């Protein structure tokens, strides 16, 4: 078991070193699918200094009997990222978060956190994870301060630093007034704060929050947003929510999960950029690689077989029509939409099964704009 001090000296994997294979993992998280792709947003990303990788999940799969709960989910989380995990009820969000927190082992796939692989070296990897389940994980008979002390001990914070860590987290989560109160007597909002406090007490590299806004009043919601936004740039957060506005307000990236598949992994800025246009497309006989090869493409998401949501920079309907025609694609319908995520959710809501389950094809994300 590594100590906290040893963990701090762990060499960090940068995006560059990860791509060149120095991270000890053969997976490639970043691919350029189009040679024409040289958008202003992409150029801006290239100019940004590379952020270290906080977590890399590769091909996570889980099956319960006949049900595929997670199907090949792959994504990379960089330090400073706040990733919004979106999906309809039963999409696999909570299961994915349990898998990422080490509470549940998937059938296949890897999760790399620093030097440690979560399922091969679980005790060391879990030191870098903070996890707040959807319903507050508390001991109702305990006082706030006692519960935080227990978690601090379990998280292996050195004895001499436990008091300081508790004071810091009490201040950050505004728990000063209730520190001596029995948790079971607190309102659900305060219990949610305690839940959040236990997750950040050891300053984890990756903070995993499963619907943290549940039970919070508007003021507490703002405080929670402020708390997440003031986390250290060395930390990354995964934040699951049903609320698109919440994700828009807190996150810089979004990962959309549907029936266990990752169908969109993109920067929120790219999706909401006024220079970008989004189209709801129905095509005949088009595959992922053909969509991914569209020039100026920022994000693309397949809703059903041959049904896509695509976002591109300075893309007009005529431009897109011409590009698809030049590639021999036949458009069934094409509608320009204003709000990518809202429209996408409406479309997903009307779809019971993901595309590949209906068509039998392999399903993979063709999103390009995945940078913070």
């Amino acid at each position, binding site marked *: *078991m590594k100590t906290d001090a040893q963990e701090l000296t762990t060499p960090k994997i940068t995006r560059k070193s990860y791509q060149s294979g120095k991270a000890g993992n053969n997976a490639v998280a970043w691919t350029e699918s189009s040679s024409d792709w040289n958008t202003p947003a992409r150029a801006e990303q290239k100019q940004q200094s590379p952020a270290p990788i906080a977590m890399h999940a590769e091909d996570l799969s889980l099956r319960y009997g006949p049900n595929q709960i997670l199907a090949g989910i792959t994504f990379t989380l960089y330090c400073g990222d706040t990733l919004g995990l979106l999906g309809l009820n039963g999409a696999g969000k909570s299961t994915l978060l*349990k898998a990422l*927190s*080490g*509470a*549940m*082992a*998937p*059938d296949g796939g890897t999760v790399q956190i620093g030097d440690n692989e979560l*399922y091969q070296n*679980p*005790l*060391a990897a*879990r*030191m870098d*994870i903070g*996890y*707040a*389940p959807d*319903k*507050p*994980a*508390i*001991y*109702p*008979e*305990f006082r706030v301060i*006692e519960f935080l002390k*227990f978690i601090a*001990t*379990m*998280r*292996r914070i050195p004895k001499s630093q436990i008091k300081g860590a508790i004071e810091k987290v009490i201040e950050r989560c505004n728990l000063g007034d209730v520190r001596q109160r029995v948790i079971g007597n607190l309102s659900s909002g305060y219990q949610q704060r305690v839940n959040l406090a*236990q997750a950040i007490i050891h300053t984890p590299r990756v903070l995993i929050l499963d619907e943290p806004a549940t039970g919070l009043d508007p003021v507490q919601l703002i405080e929670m947003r402020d708390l997440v936004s003031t986390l250290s740039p060395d930390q990354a957060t995964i934040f699951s929510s049903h609320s698109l506005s919440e994700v828009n307000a807190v996150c810089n990236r979004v990962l959309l999960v549907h029936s266990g598949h990752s169908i969109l992994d993109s920067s929120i800025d790219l999706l909401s950029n006024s220079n970008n246009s989004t189209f709801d497309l129905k095509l005949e006989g088009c595959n992922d690689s053909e969509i991914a090869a569209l020039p100026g493409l920022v994000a693309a998401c397949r809703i059903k077989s041959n049904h896509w949501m695509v976002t591109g920079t300075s893309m007009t309907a005529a431009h897109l029509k011409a590009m698809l025609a030049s590639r021999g694609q036949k458009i069934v319908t094409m509608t320009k939409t204003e709000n990518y995520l809202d429209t996408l959710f409406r479309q997903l809501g009307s779809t019971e099964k993901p595309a590949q389950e209906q068509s039998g094809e392999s399903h993979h994300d063709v999103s390009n704009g995945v940078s913070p």
Partner: protein
Amino acid sequence: MTTQIALHELRVMLRSPFAWLAAGLLQLLFGWLFLSAVERYIGLQAVATQQVSESGLSSYLIVHFLAPVSIIFMVATPLLCMHLIAGDKQANRYNLLLSLPLSAAQFVVGKFIGATVFQYLIVALSTLLLAILSFNIDLDITHLLTAGAGLLLFIATITALTLFYSSLSNRPILAAFASFVTMALLWLAAATSGNGLLQFASPSAHLHSFMQGLLDSRDVIYFVAITGILLTLGVWRFDAQRVRGASL
């Protein structure tokens, strides 16, 4: 870390109103059993033409006080320990505990020690009653200690059994019920059957030797082995969700 988990579990039990209520009722019951046993013994002395020996009092107390106490623990331990893991599941703490940098052995053994120590404290309080007698009467301490050791091992085994059932269920009461039924069936099997296998499998049969004042290493090994096996099953069960390829 095991010690920390054990201390935490002890604190959880000491914070639980149910545990205090149960501990209070057990003390009341044990006190009543003790006084009843002593009173009946005094009655026997008055009736008897000859003085009943003081060592006879020790045997009488074991049969009429410690043996009933062991039967009471067949009900009390499942009720006191049913929450050990099932309670964590019910209170939505289980996934958080699974995500902590703890080994399953640290977690399960820690919980077992905490719960066992709590029950030993209850037993220790009731043994004060015997200590009071020993001031004036020359009791057979060796016999009493042997019976006491058997009782402690018996309680540890029921605790491990309840802990294992608790790890299988999301509902504490189901764990308590399963544990009680298992112990009751094994007790009945030992009491009514002359079958050697059932006698060997029953914790009650092995406890009987201790109650007779026989410290047989086979009985000690039986209790330690059964407790160890049940704890190992609990460890496997805890890891079944979070370790790839593990199952139970």
